[in-house]
C-alpha cells in the first residue's frame, strides 16, 4: 500500500513539472493559435542557466530559480518579437516547421556551449535525502516540487481569474479581434504572456534537470510530453493543462513502475485514443 502511494506521489511531482513546462505553451496557443515547439528549448535553456549559475558561480539553488525565470523570460520575448510575430498568420504546419528548425538549432548550440554529455548537479544538502510524512518515505526534492508546483498552479489560476491583467489575457484568448477593438493592446499583452510562459518553461526545465537529466537532446525527449499535455488538456486553459499534466505524470510513473516492459507505449496509446475521442482536448473549445 505504502509503495503505491509513494509511486503516486512521484507521479504527482512529475506531473507538476510537466505542468510548469507546458502551461505557457497552452496559453499562448489558445491566444495566438501559435504552435511553439521551441517551448521545450526554453526549458532546456533554463536547465543550462541553472547549471552555469550553480556550478560555475556557486550561487545558492533558491537564488538561481528567479534568475532562470527572468533570463529565460527575456530570451523568449526577444525570440517572439524578432521571429515568431511574423508567423502568427501562417498555418499550423509552417509554425511547426519553423519552431522545430529552432529546436534543431538550439540542440546544436547547447552542444557547442555546454558539451554533449549529461550535466552534473550538486544540489544543496537540505534538499537531498528523504523525509517521513504520514508514514511514507518521500524524497525531499519531490516534496519541494509538489509544493512549488501547487503554489504555481494556484497563483496562475488566481492571477488569471482575479487580476485585471488576467482578465485582459482571458479576453485575448476568447476573441483577440474584439479585445483589440475594445482598446486592449493585444500585441503587448501577448508579448507579456509569452515572456511569463517562457520563463515558466525555463523554470520547469531548471527544476527537472536534477530529476530527468540534462543533455542537448532534452528538447526532443520532452517535446512529446509537452505536446501531449497541451493537446489533451485543451489549448488556452490552465485548469485543463493542470489536469492533463497530473494525469500524464501519474500514468507515466505508474506505467513505468508496474509495466516496465511496455515503457511509454500505454501513454501514447491512451493519448491517441483520447485525441480521436475529443480532438479539442479536455477543456478546449472547438476552433
Amino acid at each position, binding site marked *: 500500500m505504502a509503495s503505491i502511494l509513494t509511486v503516486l506521489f512521484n507521479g504527482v511531482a512529475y506531473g507538476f513539472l510537466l505542468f510548469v513546462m507546458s502551461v505557457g505553451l497552452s496559453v499562448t496557443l489558445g491566444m495566438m493559435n501559435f504552435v511553439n515547439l521551441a517551448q521545450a528549448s526554453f526549458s532546456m535553456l533554463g536547465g543550462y542557466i541553472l547549471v552555469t549559475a550553480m556550478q560555475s558561480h556557486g550561487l545558492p539553488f533558491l537564488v538561481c530559480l528567479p534568475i532562470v525565470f527572468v533570463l529565460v523570460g527575456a530570451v523568449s520575448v526577444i525570440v517572439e518579437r524578432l521571429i515568431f510575430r511574423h508567423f502568427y498568420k501562417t498555418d*499550423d504546419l509552417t509554425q511547426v516547421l519553423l519552431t522545430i528548425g529552432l529546436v534543431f538549432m538550439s540542440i546544436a548550440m547547447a552542444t557547442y556551449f555546454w558539451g554533449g554529455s549529461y550535466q552534473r548537479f550538486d544540489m544543496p544538502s537540505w534538499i537531498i535525502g528523504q523525509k517521513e510524512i504520514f508514514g511514507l518515505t518521500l524524497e525531499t526534492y519531490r516534496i519541494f516540487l509538489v509544493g512549488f508546483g501547487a503554489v504555481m498552479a494556484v497563483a496562475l489560476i488566481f492571477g488569471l481569474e482575479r487580476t485585471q491583467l488576467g482578465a485582459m489575457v482571458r479576453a485575448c484568448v476568447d476573441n483577440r479581434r474584439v479585445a483589440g477593438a475594445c482598446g486592449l493592446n493585444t500585441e503587448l499583452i501577448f508579448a507579456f504572456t509569452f515572456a511569463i510562459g517562457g520563463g515558466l518553461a525555463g523554470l520547469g526545465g531548471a527544476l527537472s534537470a536534477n530529476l530527468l537529466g540534462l543533455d542537448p537532446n532534452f528538447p526532443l525527449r520532452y517535446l512529446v510530453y509537452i505536446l501531449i499535455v497541451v493537446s489533451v488538456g485543451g489549448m488556452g486553459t490552465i485548469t485543463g493543462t493542470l489536469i492533463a499534466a497530473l494525469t500524464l505524470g501519474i500514468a507515466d510513473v505508474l506505467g513505468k513502475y508496474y509495466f516496465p516492459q511496455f515503457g511509454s507505449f500505454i501513454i501514447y496509446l491512451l493519448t491517441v485514443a483520447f485525441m480521436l475521442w475529443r480532438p479539442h482536448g479536455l477543456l478546449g473549445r472547438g476552433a
Partner: protein
Amino acid sequence: MSVMEPAPAAVSQSGHDYFATLARWKIWEILFWAALAGCYFVPEMDRMLMSRVIIWGLFAMSLDILLGYRGIPSLGHAVFFGTGAYVAGFCGKYGWSEPISALFFAMAVAAALGWLTGKLVQRVAGVGLLMVTLGLNLILFDFVLRSTDLTGGDDGLQGIVIAPVLNMFRFDIYGRTAFWYALVVSFILFIATRILVNSPFGLALIGARENPRRMITLGAPVEGDVSRAFMIAAAIAGAAGALLTQTTQTVAPPTLSFQRSADVLVILIIGGAGRLYGGFIGAIVFILLQDYLSSISPVYWYFWIGLLLVVIVSFFRKGLLPSLDALLQRFIKRKPDAPS
C-alpha cells in the same frame, strides 16, 4: 499551400481536353529524369548516396500526395516507410528473397495500414491531427524497439538475404544494381502517381484541400477520399522503405523514428509541396547537404539543417520549386514589355 489554379484557357476547354493538357509531359520533366539516370555515368559519383537520394525523393513524393494534394499534414509518415522496410526485411530474413514480389508485398501491407490510419483520422483536423499521427508514429517505434525477439530491437534485423533482381543483377557494394533498381522502381511509381494526381480523383483531392464543404455539396466523397489518399501515400512510402532495406540489406528502428517523419516533412517543404517534383528536389538538396555537413562537422550539422528550415519557411514559404517557378513566370511575363 500552393494553389494549382487551372490556366484561364483551360476553363473553356472540355473536361477531356483539360486532363489531356495535364497529362502531357513537359520538356523539363524529361530532362530531370534523364539527368537523374545520367548520374550513374558520372565518374566519382557515390552511387549508394544517389540511390539514397532517389529513395528519399520517392518517400517525400508519397507525403506530397497527402500534404500537397489533400492538405493533410502528417507527423507520422515514417510509420509507412518503416512498415515497408520491416516487411521487406522479414521477407529477406525468412526465405522470400525475390525482391520484386517482396516489394509488392511490403506495399500491400503498408497500404492496408495506411487505409486504417486514414479511417482513424479522417474526422480530425489541425493540432489534433498532428498529435494523432505523431502518437501513432511513437507507438509503432516503441513497439519495434521493445519487441526484441521479433525485430531485433535496437540492433535491427540480422541476416537479410536479397536475391539478384530478375535473377540477373546482384546487389553489389558499388551500388550499381541498387542505383538502377531504386531509379526504375521510383520512376514507375512516379508515373503511376502522376497519372493519379492528374485524374479526376486528383482533382477531387485538390478540391477538398481548397474547400471541403463545397466539395461535399458537390456530392464528392470527401471523407472516403482521405482514407484512399492515405492508402496510396502509404503504399508508396512502403515501397520506398522496402527499397531502402533491399538496397542496403539492413533495417533498424531509425527507419520509423519520429526523426524520420520530421526529416521527410522538411525535405518536402524544402522542395515545395503540391508539385510531385518537390520531394525529389528537396531530397537532392537535403541528403547531399546532410552528407556534406556531417562529414565536416559530425556534431553540429543539425544546426545548419535547422537554419535551412527557418530560412525556407521565412523567405521561400512555398518551397524552392514554387518560388523558382514564380520567379520564372515573372521573368517570362516581363519579357514582352521590354523594348525590342
